[in-house]
């Protein structure tokens, strides 16, 4: 009940003092701030880009991304009605960026989801069961990875005709084995952890071990990898468009904008530069977000 007694020196020093810290708090705080910024700056850019592609056209009436007025051809950026100007046949560039970005996001998300679902199934099966199952599945993955993705994608687009669905199909054939290999590696690591032995000793059923123990433990790695995957898919999808095998011509896409701009590159370099910059910002944001998530989740 009695108030604690303090000696004179303690009271003179002004009461309780913080212990000298081994690590400077200021440094810790700036590190924490750095970590938050590294996560939220790319995330913010992505949110802005997504809003630009999916919400902007709902709020504002954009000029058509496919038809333009030839009289208004080659207008400079920031001219009235055309935020980024118009291209050589008078089509609004900003509108092409918006609708092209939409296609890029749709395709990359679809391809990554398909790759993640089927690839994880193959990878977990191979890693978890091991033995001949692993040997066969790994060999199949090896072949699919050694198979040049671009050849397959071009062959499918060439044979089936260019369309958004065929592009998704073609690129999935390349994302599935990559995800398969990543999840297999992650599963092999998880399999050796003590709680797996405990689960097995406790008589947990196999599928339950997979769903409750393996899956949650490999998820951080797979998710942060899938962000890198999104960026890669956007680049390859652009390559297909660039080569003329992707999204069919009238619709806009960043790759075909670069290919079209190439024709008058010397006179108007911005026709190539504008879509290139949007492509770069998107992929940088995805990669940085992937890095930040990996750092946060402690994934190797």
């Amino acid at each position, binding site marked *: 009940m009695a108030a604690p007694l303090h000696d004179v020196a303690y009271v003179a020093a002004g009461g309780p003092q913080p212990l000298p810290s081994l690590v400077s708090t200021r440094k810790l705080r700036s590190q924490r701030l750095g970590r938050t910024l590294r996560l939220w700056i790319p995330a913010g850019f992505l949110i802005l880009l997504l809003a630009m592609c999916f919400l902007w056209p709902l709020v504002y009436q954009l000029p058509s991304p496919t038809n333009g007025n030839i009289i208004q051809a080659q207008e400079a950026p920031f001219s009235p009605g055309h935020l980024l100007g118009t291209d050589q046949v008078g089509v609004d560039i900003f509108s092409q960026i918006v609708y092209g970005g939409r296609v890029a996001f749709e395709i990359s998300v679809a391809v990554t989801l398909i790759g993640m679902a089927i690839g994880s199934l193959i990878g977990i099966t191979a890693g978890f069961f091991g033995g001949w199952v692993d040997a066969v599945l790994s*060999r*199949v993955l*090896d*072949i*699919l990875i*050694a*198979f*040049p*993705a*671009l*050849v*397959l994608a*071009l*062959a*499918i687009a*060439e*044979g*089936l005709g260019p369309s958004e669905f065929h592009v998704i199909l073609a690129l999935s054939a390349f994302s599935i084995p990559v995800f398969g290999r990543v999840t297999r590696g992650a599963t092999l690591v998880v399999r050796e952890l003590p709680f797996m032995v405990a689960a097995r000793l406790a008589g947990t059923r196999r599928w339950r071990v997979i769903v409750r123990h393996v899956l949650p433990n490999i998820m951080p790695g797979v998710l942060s990898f899938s962000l890198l995957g999104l*960026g890669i898919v956007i*680049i*390859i999808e*652009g*390559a297909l468009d*660039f*080569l003329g095998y992707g999204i069919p011509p009238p619709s806009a896409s960043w*790759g075909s904008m*670069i290919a079209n*701009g*190439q024709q008058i*590159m*010397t006179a108007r*370099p911005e026709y*190539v*530069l504008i*879509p*290139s910059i949007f*492509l*770069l910002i998107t*992929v*940088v944001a*995805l*990669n*940085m977000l992937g890095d930040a998530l990996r750092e946060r989740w402690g994934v190797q």
Partner: protein
Amino acid sequence: MALVQQIQLQGGAGARGSARRLAGSPALRLVGRRLLAAIPVLLGVTFLTFAVFNTLPNDTAQAILGLSASPGAVAALNHQLGLDQPFFVQYWHWLSGVLHGNLGTSVQGESVNHELATHLPVTLELLAYALVVSLLLAIIVAVLAARKPNGIVDRTQLAISMLGLSAAPYALAFVLIVIFAVKLQWFPVISGSVGDTPLSFLKAMTLPACAIGFPLFAIYTRLLRGDLVEQMQREDYIVTAKAKGVPPWRVLIRHALRNSMFTLITVVGLNLGTLVGAVAIIETVFTVPGIGQDLLTGISNRDVPLIEGIVLVFALMTVLGNLLADLMYAVLDPRIRYGSSTT
């Protein structure tokens, strides 16, 4: 396990016949096993290519003769090209040809061997140029960055390599063209003729090599820097070296870098085959007469023999790249026990 025992036995037995030691040499066994494992991959890749181009609606003959050709002429050409035969028979013909060193005839009527012989060296030179320069730069930059993690060099390198990782090769190519060929006029826009002198080669190939090499540089730098920093913080021999009073630079280069090179070598080996897409696009943009450009022409012509030949070359490059990486590992790092690793 048996292999490990055998190796230990060999070590204990000391000097025996050199031929016998060679036959039992772990490195040779490794090569043998890797080459054997490569066969199904090569077969699978070429078979898959055949299968893809055969299941897709096929009108090679129509494409050659034009839309106005009579059905009879189309059928005759199909027969001449062997396209009317069952799919497995076609693959078998191609495969037995390859085993005899004959890659077949392209639908344009040219020998694929000849096509590869003239165009493959160009691609290999371009790749070698891009690889050597990006590796050298990556090693220098990574060492400078690892010297002081989070320092100014490190942060700059981080930003640059993030750009390199995220750059689409075709977009990068055009940005390079706009800056260095159009504005500054240092290099030609089109690299069609390589020329004979080293100078003309450099002039024609520098921009394409930059477009291929910049992303590679980014990957290598990030990887090497990460590995170096980790080693400098964790490994015991680094502590020992520092305690002995070895100067920091020497520790970094002679001790840490030497070990980090292994990781780098593996990634370089693994990456070789995945470059096919970038090579094809860059060669097309700069009109470099290499096999990447041939591949794209082949695909638009449905030229299966030509495509098969090029796919085989790239698949071989992947396999050999992996093998070379393994071998470097085995030769350079005595800690590695051959046979015990299964991957």
